Structures are given as structure tokens and as C-alpha cells.
């Protein structure tokens, strides 16, 4: 990453190689269309290239995942013109975040998520990939808001423990 800051195209290329599937995968999950997901991926990486200082340290994968989510949700929002109340974009910079998992393996995470009860998994995935607020999740699933909040917290906590058990920290 420090070499990308010095505008080293070869270093940028290796970052692209390491993270483009993550960025593209998140974008695809949110926008649901390969061509649009490619556009999102291109925008995210070109932003990184033109303003690498936006990443101010910490967990690079987590950071670029947030940028990808924000970018993809932006596009969905621009298209939808709906009245749906939308959640706030995640801040790019997240000083509170620690680098906890040194390596996150997508397949392992998918297994851990699959093991969550559906009632916890659904609001978490809707919140993250759907970009809608907890109130909207409650409305769509016909569940009281308080219950949704509890399920999100419990589900994330379980996920955290499941990953701690298997992933180097």
C-alpha cells in the first residue's frame, strides 16, 4: 500500500490482484448485475489510485470493502428513487477498528454465516448488502424493531466467536 502512495503502478496491480474479487463480489451482491459490478470495481480502484491517502492505515481489506459497499449502494440508490429510508454510508476512515483477523477466508466466512440461524442471518445480510435501515428490515420481515436489533447483535457476536475459533488473530 505504501508503494501505491508513491504511484507505483506495479504495486497497484498487485493490490488489484489481491482485492478485486472482494470488491467485485460485494458490488455484484449489491447491484446484482455483472456489468454494473464491473463499473463499481473500476470506480473503487481508480479512486484508490487517484487518492490513496483516503486509506489512512488499519485493515485494508475492511476499508476497501466499505468503499465498495458505499459505491455500490450509491448506484442502487440513484436508480431506485424509492421512498425507502436508507442507512448512512459507512465512514471510510474508522479509527476504532483494530486489525483483528489477519486473514479472512471467504469460504470459511460463508460457512460461519451459513451456520447462523436464518432469523439472525437475514437481517445481517439485508442490512449489509441491502443498504436499508434496521426499521426497514423490521418492516420487510414483519418483525418488531427491538427484535431485529437483538438478532443483529447476537448474530454478529456469534460470527465473531466462530471466526475467532478458526482464524489467526
Amino acid at each position, binding site marked *: 500500500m505504501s*508503494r501505491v502512495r*508513491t*504511484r*507505483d*503502478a*506495479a504495486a497497484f496491480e498487485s493490490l*488489484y490482484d489481491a482485492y*478485486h*474479487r*472482494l470488491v*467485485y*463480489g*460485494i458490488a*455484484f*451482491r449489491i447491484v446484482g448485475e*455483472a456489468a454494473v*459490478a*464491473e463499473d463499481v*470495481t*473500476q470506480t473503487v480502484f*481508480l479512486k484508490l489510485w*487517484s487518492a490513496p491517502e483516503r486509506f489512512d492505515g488499519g*485493515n485494508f*481489506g*475492511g476499508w476497501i*470493502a*466499505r468503499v*465498495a459497499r458505499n459505491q455500490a449502494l450509491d448506484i442502487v440508490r440513484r436508480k431506485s428513487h424509492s421512498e425507502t429510508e*436508507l*442507512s*448512512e*454510508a459507512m465512514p471510510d476512515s*474508522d479509527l*476504532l477498528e*483494530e486489525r*483483528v*483477523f489477519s486473514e*479472512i*477466508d*471467504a*469460504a470459511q*466466512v*460463508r460457512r460461519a454465516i451459513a451456520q447462523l440461524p436464518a432469523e439472525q442471518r437475514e437481517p*445481517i*445480510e439485508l442490512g*449489509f*448488502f441491502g443498504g*436499508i*435501515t*434496521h*426499521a426497514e*428490515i423490521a418492516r420487510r420481515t414483519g418483525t418488531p424493531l427491538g427484535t431485529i*436489533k437483538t438478532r*443483529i*447483535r447476537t448474530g*454478529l*457476536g456469534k*460470527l*465473531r466467536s466462530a*471466526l475467532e475459533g478458526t482464524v489467526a488473530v
Partner: protein
Amino acid sequence: MNGHDAMLEDVAVYALGALPREQARAVREHLASCAECAAEYRRLKPAVDAVAYSAEACPDAASGAVVPNPRLKTRIMDEVRRSVPTRLSNVGEMRAVRPIVWPAYAVAAACLAVALITTAFNISLNEELHQTEAQVAQLGTHAKMLTRQVAAQNTELVDLTSSDSQHYAVEDGEVVRHGNRLYIAMDSMGTPPRGKVYQAWIMRKGAAKMTPSVTFMPDRKGIAVIHVPTQASQVAEVAVSMEPEGGSKQPTSKPTFIVKLT
């Protein structure tokens, strides 16, 4: 449930990115002053990152998202390489200094050798070039020093601009020989049609037929700097022609130029 437990739940929803703006702001402010909630946020945030990672596209398509088309990378890397000289030209000090009169290809090569050079021979040079760029930018020195330093660390540019290089003018550029190294440096080549590339040819001394050499593409401005990976002392003639992608064993089109090295 007391008020603070409710706040801890809001922290979880905040970490997931599913709070509306006003509430998100309230949680953010609270996090700055409440150690318990900040700890909860730190505990749950990696789980949210993990949710993000679960979407990573992989070739087995288990995620539902197949890997992106490889053309996407080409598109992005083209853009990245094209943007390097633009950024350099924004360095404040450069405006105040009269530009050094170099052929367009040499200026371009100083700024973005990466994009132009196709042979493996040159890859380590690019590393040095980019390190130099960074150092120079940090020092905030002006353009003259930048180009001089870059040139000093880059064999290729020294070769191209050295006073004891031999320059053979050809249409749209020149062939440059410095010692035993040989370059084709073009300023305004046309873009080949889809499926075609340029290919360099050399006639070895005493040979009767052209030998195929590297294939290459000019950038969008028609600039190309190519190191010909043959010892210059063995070469009698250099030519370039347009060929199908992958190159040919013999020229299949009229050369854009042939030049005798004397």
C-alpha cells in the same frame, strides 16, 4: 433492558451500517465517550468485515458471483498507467520551469516507462524509476532535477538522451543505439486495428532474411519505447511492420520503416 443495553444494540446496528443518518451520528458521538460501547463496536466490527468477505467472488461460483471478466483489469490498468504523467505534471513546481526540450517519447518514458516497455529486460528499471519519482516528489524539487534524476537512474533514458547515442530517424520516430543497446522510440504511431500489433524485425549482419523480434503497441498518443533485445553490434538493419497479434515469423505487411544501422 436498561437504556445502555439499548445503546449497545444500536452500536451493533451501527457497526453493520444499518442505522439512519441521525441515529448513526448519535452513536458515533456516544462511542467517542463510552468505553463499554467502543469495546462492543471493536468486538463486532470484524464480524461485519467478515460479512463483506463472504461476498468475495471466487471461481467456484459458490458465492453466486463469478469472477469478473479479465478485460476489466486491462481497462483499469490502462487507465492507471495513462494517469501517471498527468499526475506528475500537476506537481506545482513544474509549472514555473521551462520544459526541457526532449522528444515526446523520452518525456513520456520518464513519466510512465511502465506502460510503454514490453520486454522483461526493463522491469527492474521501472521499479527504480518509480522510487525515484517518489523521492523527487517528496523533496519538492523542480522538473529539471526530476527529469535529470530519473534519467540518471534509468539506463534506458540515459541511452535515449545521451549525447553519444546514435539516432537513426525513421517515419514517426527514431531508432536509437547506445553502445550495444538498441531501441525503437516512436512519437506518433497510428493505433493498429483490432487484432493487429506492431512487430520489430532485425537483419543480423551477414544474414539474408529478417529475424522476428518483439511485438508492441503504442499508447494512445502513439508513443512507444521498445528495447530490442539483441546486441546492437550484431544488427545491420531494423524494421517495424504491422502483424497479427502474437507476431509473425516473417513480415506479412509492408514495413512502416526499414533503417540501416551504420
